[in-house]
């Protein structure tokens, strides 16, 4: 069910680099002229607070910027790059990607205009680098340009130079809109906040701003000089923010007051009931979100050198692979998917499920209480008087922490029940999200500190899983020394894995790189470093007549220029 629309097994980027012609099919678009589509009304339960893509902290902001600003390329639903402001996607074959992997050349689409009529050139692209890379600008995009130099070769060509070979180069200028040099030039660095265009975007996108109230309403109207023919279809677009997810779903599915509602974190049962009104339907967009249980490999209950879960220590129970294996067998993914998440959470045994080219076929979903019991017997854990297993005077008791969130508490309850059948006492703990996800060094209950045995939350995987896989490398281990700012929270270390990651980071052959990533996925699954539970596709609702393409790898509005109404 998650794999909706994932039909192309290999990505265009891969094909192109492997010397095969690009096969990206453009989304079906029927309108024969620009405009005439009336109003498009989108409902976001969190309103956009700003319209500068370099400041956009969340998807709600990024989505709104995509009406006005466009990147060089966007990710399509299959995780392939599609050119937007670029003339073509760089590849080894077309010479865009250097054979040594240290530079990439982007060719820009000619005759593209900013909303104010000025031409879009390579100087604008370079400016985005200058602007974002300046720490005083306080751009959230600063890391995309790490160790990168951008040069304009001619008005329609830019080159990115990297310090070392880079397998995944499609981060800078992709998925995030570009801002015009002539408008933002005087607002680089510490003056960035004063730019009037932060609230009044001037971009190349299909729509131009009419009015903007931060956190509430974005109104836009058709751009008559848009660079794609017959687009856009709608005369006006409005993004209304605020309220809650349930009533947003209502406004689309039951009253059709709005055409589209974003990110409906609502129980599937409620959504199904609303769909019965027949006015709209729920859209499940496969992306890279994964709900999982993380396993602590260090000892969270003993303080060593001023910190619990010190990477130098070993977990007294969970460092035994047999126990981890038993815990994995006790996680009833199918039941959790069926009874807790419904359509919004298909069960998975993989860290990387999508894009399909990175999906491992070597894993499977197994739920087996008997086998778990045998493994625990084998590991020397004997049933005690009260049914809980004991070994060397230690009870088999584990603490599972997660955020306060209904589906997670239900999942915890299901897991606790099966653990009980195998003689494991699972203590459940729930922490408020603002504490759990905070970087607060003074709080022991944060996800990063991981001062307990097991933790459950969601991780995002991008169209390229590289940065997600990096979070399992030994140099990424979170500890007091790095203020728990590193992402390997399970403190797992494996030399084989490290070597695989380092190889994948510079492997330019996409087929070989995908193989390496699959091997890394299998290693994590075999060692039960994390226990994947369900994939979490993006859940949106739309009017029955609305025709559109949504990508789980990019902003929901990445292809807003193609949105139209059918019969």
């Amino acid at each position, binding site marked *: 069910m998650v794999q909706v629309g994932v039909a192309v097994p290999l990505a265009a980027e891969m094909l192109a680099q492997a010397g095969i012609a690009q096969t990206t099919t453009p989304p079906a678009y029927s309108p024969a002229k620009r405009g005439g589509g009336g*109003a498009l009304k989108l*409902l976001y339960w*969190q*309103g956009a*607070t*700003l319209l*500068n893509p370099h*400041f956009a*902290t*969340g998807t709600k902001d990024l989505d709104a910027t995509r009406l006005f600003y466009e990147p060089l390329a966007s990710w399509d639903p299959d995780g392939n790059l599609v050119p937007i402001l670029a003339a073509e996607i760089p590849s080894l074959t077309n010479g865009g990607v250097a054979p040594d992997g240290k530079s990439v050349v982007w060719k820009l689409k000619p005759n593209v205009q900013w909303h104010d009529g000025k031409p879009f050139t390579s100087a604008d692209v370079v400016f985005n680098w200058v602007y974002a890379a300046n*720490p*005083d600008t*306080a751009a*959230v995009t*600063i*890391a*995309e340009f790490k160790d990168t130099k951008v040069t304009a070769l001619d008005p329609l060509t830019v080159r990115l130079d990297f310090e070392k070979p880079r397998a995944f180069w499609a981060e800078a200028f992709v998925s995030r809109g570009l801002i015009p040099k002539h408008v933002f030039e005087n607002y680089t660095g510490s003056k960035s*906040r004063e730019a009037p265009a*932060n*609230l009044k975007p001037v971009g190349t996108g299909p729509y131009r701003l009419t*009015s903007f*109230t*931060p*956190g*509430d*309403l974005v*109104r836009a109207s058709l751009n008559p000089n848009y660079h794609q023919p017959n687009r856009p279809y709608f005369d*006006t677009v*409005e993004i*209304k*923010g*605020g*309220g*809650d997810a349930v*009533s947003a779903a*209502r*406004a689309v599915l*039951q*009253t059709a*007051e*709005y055409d589209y509602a974003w990110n409906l974190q609502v129980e599937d049962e409620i959504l199904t009931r609303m769909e019965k009104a027949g006015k709209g339907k729920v859209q499940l967009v496969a992306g890279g979100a994964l709900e999982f249980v993380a396993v602590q490999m260090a000892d969270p209950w003993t303080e060593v050198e001023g910190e619990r879960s010190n990477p130098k220590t070993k977990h007294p129970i969970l460092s035994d692979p047999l126990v981890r294996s038993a815990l994995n067998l006790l996680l009833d993914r199918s039941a959790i998917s069926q009874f807790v998440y419904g359509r919004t959470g298909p069960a998975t045994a993989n860290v990387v499920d999508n894009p399909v080219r990175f999906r491992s076929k070597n894993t499977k979903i197994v739920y087996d209480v008997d086998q778990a019991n045998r493994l625990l017997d084998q590991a020397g854990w004997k049933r005690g008087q009260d049914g809980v297993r004991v070994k060397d005077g230690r009870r088999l008791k584990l603490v599972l922490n997660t955020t306060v969130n209904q589906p997670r508490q239900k999942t915890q309850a299901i897991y606790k029940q099966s653990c009980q059948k195998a003689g494991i006492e699972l203590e459940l703990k729930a922490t*408020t999200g*603002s*504490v759990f*996800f*905070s*970087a*607060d060094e003074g*709080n022991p209950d944060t996800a990063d500190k991981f001062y307990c045995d097991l933790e459950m939350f*969601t*991780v*995002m*995987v*991008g169209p390229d899983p590289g*940065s*997600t896989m990096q*979070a399992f490398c030994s140099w990424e281990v979170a500890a007091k020394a790095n203020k728990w*700012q*590193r*992402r390997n929270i399970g403190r797992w270390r494996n030399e084989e894995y490290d070597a695989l990651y380092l190889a994948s980071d510079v492997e330019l052959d996409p087929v070989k790189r995908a193989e390496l990533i699959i091997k890394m996925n299998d290693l994590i699954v075999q060692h039960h470093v994390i226990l994947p539970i369900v994939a979490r596709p993006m859940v949106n609702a739309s009017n029955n007549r609305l025709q559109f393409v949504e990508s789980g790898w990019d902003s929901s509005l990445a292809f807003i220029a193609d949105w139209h109404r059918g019969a």
Partner: protein
Amino acid sequence: VTFPGGFILRRTLIALPSLLGISVILFAVLALAPGDPFAELASNPNIPPEVAAGLREKFGLNDPVPVRYVRWLVAMLHGDWGFSFASRIDVSALILQRLPTTLVVIGSAQVLALLIGIPIGIYAATRPYSLFDQLANTFAFAGFSVPTFFTGLILILVFSIKLDWLPFVFRADLPSTGAQFYWDYFKQAIMPVTVLALFQAASWTRYMRSSALEVIRLDHVTTARAKGLAERTVIVKHVLRNALIPVVTLVALEIPAVFGGAIVTEQIFRVPGIGSLLISAILANDTPVIMGVTFVFSCLVLISNLLADLLYGWLDPRIALR
């Protein structure tokens, strides 16, 4: 009546330390509460933790709380409310943008509440323990016991979903013009205004009834009746006027509570007022905006208190302001 200038000045001077105290407590609570305005960045695997850490450093969030407070206070004294971490624009601009909508919705709700509450209260007082009085009391108790979010949801279910008469998403910036604009605005305002008005009307009914009951027993009302005045004249001229004195001051005192109640209603109907601004700021851990909005609310409390005292003295010359 002389203008109580000295009284106002003295009260304002007393208010200043209270405001200062409120701001210290607010700032301390916000600083101690968990949460991080850039936490959302952490969910994106492509944005390393250093980016959020850099932004925290840049916006001075890593400094000790007293330093941050003094910085905020000094800026505030210069009229600089700071800027929102979420939208990076000035807090004062954000609040001014939202204030008109809140005032329109709350103002009309208050007027409607008084139009319902005062007549019902008076009429109930003239016929205590009659069937009408019983009904009015039941309505009043139901009114202030049922929370606004509940009445809001009921109205949405009935009028938007079942009957499909009214929209339940409020827009301050409607695309229509002319008469159509006012009609659309009126239609979308009906439900939020009704929800707030019913809640308020319930308490006004109770206040009005008890206040009128007290006045009705007084000698001057008996005298008026003995003079042979029409019942209507007695009620309007002799009862209502006197009974309104405590009610008017209560209305002034309750203004902050109305703003508080409006926060929930604004959230349900997506009314872009300062209440919904406060909620989204709290969810985003946007400290400068939370400080700004709560500061506006605390000023409102102090001003309404002062207003209540002034009104009381003006309406009832027996009370002297010193």
